[in-house]
């Protein structure tokens, strides 16, 4: 049984560009959450998707957007990249109404 997978593992972009990160949830999980983890910090909640809709959102600007597909996989899009967007982006999945979230290995984004 595959766990949560994310792609790519690493990414380098320049300021102003746009990026798309991808996540496939653990089998049987229909809820996907995205977190940003800056260096030396704990993860910060970006948003959560369920039934292809954004259900909750953290304190992140509209440059951060997402999508969930019918197979429950998800994408995180960031527009107009800033240097401060450099971070590890973590995807977590869970069955609906379950509190325990399982994380993928993350995507390391570097903005130059």
């Amino acid at each position, binding site marked *: 049984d595959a766990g949560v997978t994310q792609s790519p593992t690493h990414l380098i972009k320049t300021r102003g560009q746009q990026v798309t990160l991808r996540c496939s949830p653990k089998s049987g999980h229909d*809820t996907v*959450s995205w*977190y940003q983890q800056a260096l*030396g*910090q*704990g*993860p*910060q*909640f970006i948003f*959560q998707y*369920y039934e292809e809709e954004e*259900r*909750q959102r*953290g304190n992140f600007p509209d440059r951060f957007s997402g999508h969930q597909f019918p197979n429950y996989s998800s994408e995180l899009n960031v527009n107009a990249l800033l240097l401060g967007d450099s971070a*590890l982006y*973590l995807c*977590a999945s*869970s069955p*609906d*109404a*379950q*509190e*325990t*979230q*399982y*994380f*993928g*290995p*993350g995507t*390391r984004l570097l903005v130059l």
Partner: protein
Amino acid sequence: AQTVTQSQPEMSVQEAETVTLSCTYDTSESDYYLFWYKQPPSRQMILVIRQEAYKQQNATENRFSVNFQKAAKSFSLKISDSQLGDAAMYFCAYTENSGNTPLVFGKGTRLSVIA
């Protein structure tokens, strides 16, 4: 807003010894969940243990156990018989018991294990 505080940025322990990592949290809710996650250099966030606030009994998972003090809003992690593979960042996290609410994390404690 809920907050999670880990007051120990770094800890170290001798192999085979016991270490305790501290965590406090702030919430007005009475029903919630607490977690400890481990993040090794590989970056994968791994669930170590979870505690349901309505359960008085402290959770245990093999060498890992917690000391949950609900009134004091304290949730410490004890690692017994420490192994080299336990070296990692450890994050304490909180979520409400309302189904799929976000996890709120502390800043983490870096644990080193000395051979």
